[in-house]
């Protein structure tokens, strides 16, 4: 077995692959909850203050929408570099897994917020009206009607965001973030070691595939329409 591995993957150090896989997973697991924690309320506010919605506030909506668009139009590589001072402040370092998480969150949260806004818009206005007519407060409308009704859409949004985060982690290698993408760039691309490239790509593909499948299952599980 070992002989076979060495023959087909002469440049691959398996413990390095293992470490990189672990780093990628850690970045994902570290960044996703913060992305949701920041993006979900932001998406809810975007939805509520939007045109013809419950808390219509044209000024607030425009400012938020502009900030979100600004962050989303910034290439992630640029964001990584711009964020370095802030990252050091928040995470104590701009290197490694810990240093990668703040830029990942800042890059993915606006994207997720837009997906949340879209998912909430899919909720039938009549349901919001009916909930209002029952005497619900704004908080109750959000927690008891809006979010449960949008749950399948929100789960789909989390799935897409998780996959986006995986592709972002690949770029964080550029500033010493580590992970599978980093390995692919350093060995596969810069040293032209196609076997390393192949292994990392296959591992990333498996990860994306697993995320998508789990996400799709959850969406189906919570869809009642």
């Amino acid at each position, binding site marked *: 077995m070992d002989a076979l591995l060495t023959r087909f993957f002469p440049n691959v150090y398996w413990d390095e692959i293992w470490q990189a896989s672990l780093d990628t997973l850690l970045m994902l697991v570290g960044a996703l909850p913060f992305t949701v924690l920041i993006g979900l309320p932001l998406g809810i506010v975007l939805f509520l203050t939007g045109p013809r919605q419950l808390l219509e506030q044209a000024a607030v909506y425009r400012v938020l929408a502009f900030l979100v668009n600004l962050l989303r139009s910034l290439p992630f590589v640029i964001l990584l570099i711009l964020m370095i001072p802030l990252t050091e402040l928040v995470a104590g370092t701009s290197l490694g897994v810990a240093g990668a998480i703040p830029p990942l969150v800042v890059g993915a949260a606006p994207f997720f917020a837009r997906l949340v806004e879209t998912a909430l818009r899919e909720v039938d206005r*009549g349901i919001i009206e*009916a909930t209002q007519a029952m005497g619900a407060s704004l908080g109750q409308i959000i927690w008891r009607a809006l979010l449960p009704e949008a749950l399948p859409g929100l789960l789909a949004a989390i799935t897409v965001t998780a996959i986006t985060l995986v592709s972002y982690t690949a770029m964080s290698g550029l500033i010493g973030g580590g992970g599978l993408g980093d390995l692919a760039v350093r060995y596969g691309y810069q040293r032209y070691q196609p076997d390393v490239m192949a292994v990392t790509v296959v591992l990333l593909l498996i990860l994306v595939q697993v995320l998508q499948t789990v996400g799709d299952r959850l969406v189906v599980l919570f869809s009642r329409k």
Partner: protein
Amino acid sequence: MIEFQNVAKTYRVAGREVPALQSTDLRVEAGEVFGLIGHSGAGKSTLLRLINRLEAPSAGRIMVDGEDVTALDSTGLRAFRRRVGMIFQHFNLLSSKTVAANIAMPLELAGEHSRAEIDARVQELLARVGLTDHARKYPAQLSGGQKQRVGIARALATRPKILLCDEATSALDPQTTGQVLQLLAEINRELGLTIVLITHEMDVIRRVCDRVAVMDAGQIVEQGTVADVFLHPQHITTRRFVFESEHVDEESQHADFEHVQGRILRLTFTGEATYAPLLGRVAQKTGVDYSILAGRIDRIRETPYGQLTIALVGGDINAALAQFEAADVHVEVLR
């Protein structure tokens, strides 16, 4: 129970003021079924939503059950809305919740009841609307009529005094419409609930309402008891609704009658007179000959009525008219 005092509503659309409801006075008595009929855009939906302040009025005062709805703060408004149930054309049930959870929702939102109380109330409501076996289903698994029953059960959960119905049967087929209307009439009778419903179908008004207001272009153009408005429509909009519901085209009917000889009368019978053998008797006594040109015998809520358009020839026509009127038949001379 509900009183509108000079209530008006205008919307601002793209910087322009668009009137939805012109200054309106309206009274709905406790325990009655009050119908609002109008075409889409006539303002009936706005008027209905002003009652539970889903829409805020631009002017005027709305009193409901002795309370000035227009003056309520947000806490007061939420408590008030729990005393007013509402059902909708497209049911507006939460697709993520079971039938039982949908019905329980207003009680949970109120936060004043224990789980056991809520469960007991939900069972009671399920039984009332005949859906006990469907408690664990999701709305997507139900037919339109069943969904509206869930809507009704949900609206009744907090024991409101008023039920607002927003085109509640417009998305249903005729048979289901009948069943839902029957349920509404039953609720009105047994619970003494005041019902305000809006519709664009005269038939709905005829089957369940006590009184009706006809709306056109943001104002009430005619109102009264259903029998009065239905049998003797005055306003052009009302006439159209009535003729539409009877599948009669007023103009082509006039054209048809042109070739008919003699006087043309429309006789309206209500209650017992509907089934009395009057026409033959009058013909015998006064020597007039009659032919029936058009007619309809039906019910308004529980009251039978008949409306016949007849032509009279020969004999003593004035005596015939007097005899009809003596028999409590409403006579209109059309020609």
